């Protein structure tokens, strides 16, 4: 896809995010908006996905395709929107987000058999371990697919993350690309104030990872370039960490750069103000 088309998808995804969160008056718009470029770039351009007649075909094992895991499950709105827009499930189902009897649970789950989801996430710190297991299964199966996993920067405060970070270089997991959404915010405030992670790049390097940085994580061109570079470094015995610098709430001016929109839904007026900033490119659900 051309850059311009990807940006159009991103604009629609952002509309979906704010409308979904508004529709149930709960959910996490900030991190979802900040990671929109990454999700669109992955699903609409970079991931090798099993497809039939131009539509994605989902099976749990993901044989022969790339896999994506979301460890910081609270940014489910961006993932649900991208999965629906990609064709994994019907777009109108986005309207059921966080409502009773929905497959679109507040945090992603396999329990409701939603196409595209392979593990439950929400309780933080578990996704990297799961992705490492899936990467090992791919090697055992002689499957060339690449495993991707996204974590939050606040999530780096969980101990299990560092068990997994230690494991990956020791076992030479080199078919995995991990991302950290570096938006510098968590629920109680800026990450440097709540619990300073210090220099995550240096930490990962010290643990034996290859680290690359995407400084403009909300610039589609920069994200695509970073993803290309990450992939080029696979297969040399080391896991890859991509530090993705994003702005929480990016794309909606009054939500940007503040932890206040981590887990708060817009009211009717705020929704209108947000949608006025985001072009409807693929038709609202």
């Amino acid at each position, binding site marked *: 896809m051309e850059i311009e088309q990807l940006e159009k998808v991103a604009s629609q995804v952002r509309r979906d995010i704010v409308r979904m969160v508004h529709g149930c008056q709960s959910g996490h718009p900030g991190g979802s908006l900040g990671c929109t470029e990454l999700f669109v770039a992955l699903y609409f351009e970079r991931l090798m996905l099993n497809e039939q007649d131009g539509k994605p075909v989902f099976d*749990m*094992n*993901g*044989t022969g395709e790339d*896999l994506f895991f979301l460890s910081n499950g609270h940014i489910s709105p961006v993932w649900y929107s991208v999965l629906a827009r990609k064709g994994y499930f019907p777009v109108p189902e986005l309207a059921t987000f966080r409502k009773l009897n929905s497959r679109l649970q507040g945090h992603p*789950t*396999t*329990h409701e058999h939603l196409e595209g989801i*392979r*593990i*439950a*996430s*929400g*309780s933080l*710190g*578990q*996704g*990297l*371990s*799961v*992705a*490492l*297991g*899936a*990467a*090992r*299964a*791919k090697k*055992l*199966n002689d*499957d060339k697919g690449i495993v991707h996993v996204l974590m939050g920067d606040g999530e780096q405060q969980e*101990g*299990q993350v560092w*068990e*997994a970070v*230690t*494991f990956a270089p*020791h*076992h030479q997991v080199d078919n995995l690309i991990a991302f950290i959404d570096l938006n510098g915010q968590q629920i109680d405030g800026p990450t440097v104030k709540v619990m300073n992670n210090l220099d995550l790049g240096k930490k990962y390097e010290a643990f034996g990872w290859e680290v690359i940085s995407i400084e403009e994580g909300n610039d589609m061109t920069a994200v695509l370039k970073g993803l290309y570079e990450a992939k080029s470094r696979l297969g040399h015995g080391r896991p890859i960490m991509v530090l993705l610098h994003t702005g929480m709430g990016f794309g909606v001016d009054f939500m940007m750069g503040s932890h206040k929109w981590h887990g708060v839904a817009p009211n009717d007026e705020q929704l209108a103000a947000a949608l006025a900033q985001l072009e409807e490119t693929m038709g609202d659900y």
Partner: protein
Amino acid sequence: MKKYTFTEKKDTRSGFGAGMQILGQQNPNVVALCADLVGSLKLEAFIKENPERFIQCGISEANMIGLSAGLTIGGKIPFATTFANFATGRVYDQIRQSVAYSNKNVKICASHAGLTLGEDGATHQILEDLGMMKMLPGMTVINPCDYNQTKAATIAIAEYEGPVYLRFGRPVIPIFTDADQKFEIGKAWMVNEGTDVSIFATGHMVWEAIQAGELLEAEGINAEIINIHTIKPLDEEAVLKSVEKTGCVVSAEEHNRIGGLGDSIAQVLVKHLLAPQEYVAVNDSFGESGTPTQLMEKYGLTAKHIVEAAKRAIARK
């Protein structure tokens, strides 16, 4: 009383190791994981024959559970192994979210369960694991009684699709079940038919129950003894059929009296068939250092204690 004899004693964990060796030879999808306790879990033979299908996790149990969940995505059948304390309480949230809620085909295989771990003391002697695991929706919970049964159970759970908790132990105990038995998940095993009291025992307590049955017989009491190797799903039909006949119950387990086998049975009885029940279990306390024999005596988990409980149950009929 049906006679049970033995010629050899072995630890149930060695039954697990033997089962894993067979699985390694028979099922190419079986993968073993361990958190720095390979010798304790008796995995040497599996690792020697299948080095590429063994994953050393180091002292990182949470990561091991997540890895196991991930391995199922790709069709592997991971057996995550460590001591029962570290396989359950330490990683409850990882099991809850990444395994049980995600319905992953992970086998959590836990050795050194209960008091009979012995001298290491209460930090390692988990007595709450059956309760924690049975409370997870979709989790199958199995606690076999000797070497042969543990071996058979290990092989059987690989064939079953879904999360399983398999609990076994450290001490050597008599081998009294058949070497070539077929293990049926969820199917109680009739050890001895009787009419006066139903003794439902699990794990190491099954052998104690057999000895108790012989002591009771000498006093003219005819005990029915049933091995509940699968705590969940519980064989409710077998429980009710037995209690209809005997009218009273003893439950026997190497576990806290709260949340274990006894409570599962009580839940069935209170709904379908009220009957007096006596618990042989640890009385809501932690363990301590000591030899397995000393600990089972001090905490009330011997044949003698089952005999006393049986008499109390009968008196309450």
